[in-house]
């Protein structure tokens, strides 16, 4: 029986938690409720990019003297990158040419970029890193609830996951609604490429898969190019166009006065070990999808008069290696980029401390070094936007994070 999404059981659990041992906190909760009215119309969206976004493609450090040599073929783009000029960095950064809507938001002061940001976990495993990203613990598998679920444990409104199941980040004592489109997801080119590798020793299965792939996926390519991940094709994760529809739907829920205060969306397909430079490849397509989705989310929030009280954080479990690998892609890394957008954001600037790209400046000689803890970004938004008290952030939401100081990303 499905456990975490079963509604009656969740209600029972909440009732049990509510009555047990929380009496001393009950008066605190009433006090908070009296002052929380101001925060209750605020909206927060967390967008998880699963697979490890190549942040040096999304936010290239074009002004870094080592950029071209360090990145090799990945330093070139099919169209000119979009400059992120600001007084402080003198043209160090730009956005990938497919992030035009984000670039416009940056120009209007609605988007802040945080670079060389990452998790305290550095072992480069998707499973472990996503667990850390969502649980809010510095080590994987210590916590089975999520930082956002814990942050919202005292909220009057339910949280919303635009997915078929509640992601770890939202799990906690509070109630979570899920909403997913009726359209069923289709197999993506990335999954099929990995299947082909799994079937390599079984010629009958491998041949049948290859014939099926040619029939069903776009951009038919020879089998060995497929195995090397060199194909074009739809991005993994939601069906093509799915993320945009999901983002639009999220905005529709969020703008309602009794709507969720918090929503979470996923976009996968970022694990680009191959063929990153292809302007029609998985990375380029995914960036286009991300840009269109965030633009649609913004549009929906603006139309519902909610943009001025909404903050969206876009984060990934790790960035990728600085240097290109043998299949024109990149392998798992550490530091990367995150986006913070919304009406209240101090946008039009890049936050963080740039560590440089020369080999001696990389983490283990491979990755962009992490100079800002992602929890500083999340704590800053939770504190300033959702008014979660500092003590709760340090002890409950991000346990063990007292040394991590919140970043001041919002205006006023």
């Amino acid at each position: 029986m499905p456990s975490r999404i079963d509604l009656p059981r969740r209600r029972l659990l909440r009732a049990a938690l509510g009555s047990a041992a929380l009496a001393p906190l009950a008066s605190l909760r009433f006090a908070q409720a009296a002052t929380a009215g101001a925060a209750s119309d605020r909206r927060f969206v967390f967008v998880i990019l699963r697979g490890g976004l190549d942040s040096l493609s999304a936010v290239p450090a074009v002004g870094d003297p080592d950029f071209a040599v360090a990145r090799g073929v990945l330093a070139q783009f099919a169209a000119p990158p979009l400059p992120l000029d600001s007084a402080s960095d003198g043209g160090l950064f730009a956005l990938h040419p497919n992030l035009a809507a984000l670039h416009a938001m940056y120009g209007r002061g609605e988007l802040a970029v945080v670079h060389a940001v990452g998790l305290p976990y550095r072992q480069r495993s998707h499973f472990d890193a996503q667990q850390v990203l969502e649980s809010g613990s510095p080590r994987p598998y210590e916590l089975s609830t999520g930082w956002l679920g814990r942050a919202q444990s005292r909220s009057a409104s339910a949280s919303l996951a635009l997915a078929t199941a509640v992601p770890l980040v939202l799990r906690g004592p509070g109630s979570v609604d899920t909403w997913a489109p009726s359209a069923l997801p289709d197999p993506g080119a990335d999954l099929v490429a990995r299947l082909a590798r799994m079937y390599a020793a079984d010629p009958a299965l491998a041949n049948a898969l290859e014939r099926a792939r040619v029939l069903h996926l776009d951009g038919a390519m020879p089998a060995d190019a497929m195995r090397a991940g060199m194909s074009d094709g739809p991005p993994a994760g939601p069906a093509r166009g799915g993320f945009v529809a999901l983002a639009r739907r999220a905005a529709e829920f969020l703008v309602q006065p009794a709507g969720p205060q918090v929503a979470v969306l996923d976009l996968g397909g970022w694990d680009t070990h191959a063929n990153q430079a292809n302007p029609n490849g998985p990375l380029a397509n995914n960036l286009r999808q991300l840009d269109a989705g965030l633009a649609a989310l913004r549009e929906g929030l603006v139309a519902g008069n909610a943009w001025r009280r909404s903050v969206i954080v876009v984060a990934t479990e790790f960035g990728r290696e600085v240097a290109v690998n043998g299949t024109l892609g990149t392998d798992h890394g550490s530091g990367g980029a995150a986006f913070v957008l919304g009406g209240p954001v101090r946008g039009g600037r890049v936050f963080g401390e740039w560590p440089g790209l020369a080999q001696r400046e990389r983490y283990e000689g491979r990755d962009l070094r992490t100079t800002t803890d992602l929890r500083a970004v999340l704590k800053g938004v939770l504190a300033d936007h959702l008014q979660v008290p500092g003590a709760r952030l340090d002890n409950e939401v991000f346990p063990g994070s007292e040394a991590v100081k919140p970043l001041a990303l919002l205006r006023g």
Partner: protein
Amino acid sequence: MLPLPLGEGRGRSGAFKPHAASPLSGTGLQAGTRTASEGREATRSEPNRRPPAGWSDRADDWLGPDAVWKRVEWATRAADRLGAIVDARALAAQSLGPLLGGATRLQIERAADGPQALALLLLAPEFQRR
């Protein structure tokens, strides 16, 4: 993402059977259909039924590209629903044990996220040839 909570499955079905025909049997999780393998029924005991589309017992049928693609679609959709809850690495070890091959284990370990890992497990050759 936690390893699958065995306690729940065990309490519900009465017995958890490792190395079963389907990675989901005995876990209490419904995936909507079950895998068949060479005429043998899945461990959930049911009266004689014709296998569902894509799961024919005849090699000619289930090795055809359309049958393969139907299973890929099914696995993608099942994994989309369950991939955030189920740890495919733990489930692979529990359901296949010593039968888990190196290629399958490697691809699951390298999967980009939970749903992808689970889809790969559901499509593992070890479940299709038993």
